[in-house]
């Protein structure tokens, strides 16, 4: 069997193994990220929805503005799920046992990362559908829906690189869990809740330079039917940069851990 086809088949097996594991643990893998994002959308719409009635607010309703952010929150909340699984495989000796078989160790990592992106797409689609039920706008129709879900899956792939580096470097579950709250300042200091014009000067500066902001702006602009192409390009570049850096480090560390001494 050609090596590439064998690698693809092994990766598919690992993908399915991780998916089965996630099905058994659906609460953590799927339900919690959906519920938390929905919770955030509903609560903020209830409390601060009135701000859309103030002069200068750019959308018809507050939920139009925060819907894209809610989709990305589901990525943040669920992050580190498969990195934790990889740690369990390392600790239990599963990766050691795989070395007795003609399986490329990289297939484990690629299968898990691919599942992480697929899981994020499922969760993001559910959150976006619920946001639409709550009254959010999607002027780009099905294409817009698919593009935003695709952005969320790509962002999940990039963001989870940080968790893989932490898991493989520290080799403790505490390190993976401890990284979870870093998303809070990332979303708080972005245009997640209000546009730049509603922020004081110092806040505008921080939000403008926040690397997550172009991803958020791109996603929101797609839903509002005003796709900002430069932001979309910057968003893709940010995600490619983050993924390139983190997965290079993770792959190096993973190779060291899975190569016989």
């Amino acid at each position, binding site marked *: 069997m050609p090596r590439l086809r064998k690698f693809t088949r092994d990766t598919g097996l690992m993908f399915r193994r991780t998916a089965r594991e996630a099905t058994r643990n659906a609460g953590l893998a799927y339900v919690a990220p959906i519920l938390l994002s929905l*919770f955030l959308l509903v*609560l*903020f*719409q*209830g*409390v*601060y*929805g*009135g*701000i859309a*009635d*103030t*002069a200068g607010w750019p959308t018809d309703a507050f939920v139009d503005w925060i819907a894209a952010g809610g989709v990305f929150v589901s990525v943040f909340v669920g992050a580190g799920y498969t990195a934790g699984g990889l740690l369990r495989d390392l600790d239990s000796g599963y990766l050691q046992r795989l070395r007795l078989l003609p399986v490329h160790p990289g297939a484990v990592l690629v299968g898990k990362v691919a599942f992480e992106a697929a899981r994020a797409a499922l969760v993001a689609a559910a959150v976006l559908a619920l946001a639409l039920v709550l009254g959010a706008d999607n002027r780009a129709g099905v294409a817009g829906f698919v593009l935003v879900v695709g952005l969320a899956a790509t962002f999940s792939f990039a963001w989870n690189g940080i968790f893989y580096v932490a898991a493989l470097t520290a080799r403790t579950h505490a390190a993976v869990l401890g990284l979870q709250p870093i998303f*809070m*300042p990332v979303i*708080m*200091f972005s245009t997640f*809740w*209000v546009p730049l014009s*509603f*922020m*004081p000067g110092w*806040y505008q500066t921080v939000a403008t330079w926040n690397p997550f902001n172009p991803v958020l702006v791109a996603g929101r602009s797609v839903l509002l039917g005003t796709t900002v192409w430069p932001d979309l390009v910057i968003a893709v570049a940010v995600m490619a940069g983050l993924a390139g850096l983190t997965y290079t480090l993770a792959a190096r560390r993973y190779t060291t851990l899975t190569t016989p001494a």
Partner: protein
Amino acid sequence: MRALVNSTMLAFVRQAREARRDPGPFYVLPMLPALLMTVVFIALFERIATLERFGDTAYAEFLVPGVVALVALLGAGATSSSLAADLRGGFFQRLRLLRAPIGSQLSGRLLFEAVRLLPGTAVVLAVGLAFGATAHNGLAGILVVVALVTLLGVAFTGIFYAVAIRTHDPQTPFTLQPLGLPLSFLSTALVPLAVMPEWARTAAQFNPVTVVVDGSRQAMLGQLWSAELGWSVVVLAVWTVLGVLLAWAALSRDIARS
């Protein structure tokens, strides 16, 4: 009675020692969400105060007496973890051999629960004042707000104790912490009722946190001794009694079973 007071103080000191060994979860973590929300929400949502239905208070002035309640609501139940650990480790069984009043393990911890919220409450109020809040009644108003927040922390802890006692698991009570989010958001802690949509207004009107926050806001911005303050004391007293009864019932059942 004297035995109960002595025992309560011993339990308080034991809990305080544990907190000194690991101060983060007891003193620092409870204030972080409220602190972050104070800074971020004043910066981002101050224009909501330009709505006619908001009233004529600046947003920072309105927010701070409310958001400070989040110190108690989002950082609640830290002492429930050690309660569960003591039950699991057989500490309560040993206490029974000594004929020590078992209830003091709850009262001592509840007392510490109130005291540990003091630094976080003070920091959030100080930062809020620096970001534009005002205290029309001076230090007296601030002290009343601090007292209400600590009492809210005590009242809310009862349910954490009941879960800790039922499960004997130090982690399980923390799964209740997200409860603080709807309790604080669907109240008048962040915006007045007039700004909320109908469904949120209805939820807020039946939320006991609304009464407490209204009392706190009156103490800081209106009259120091107001009807709102009186109602908030009544609500907190009832809430505390219910919480303690719930925890005590769980503890009595647990002791009877063992």
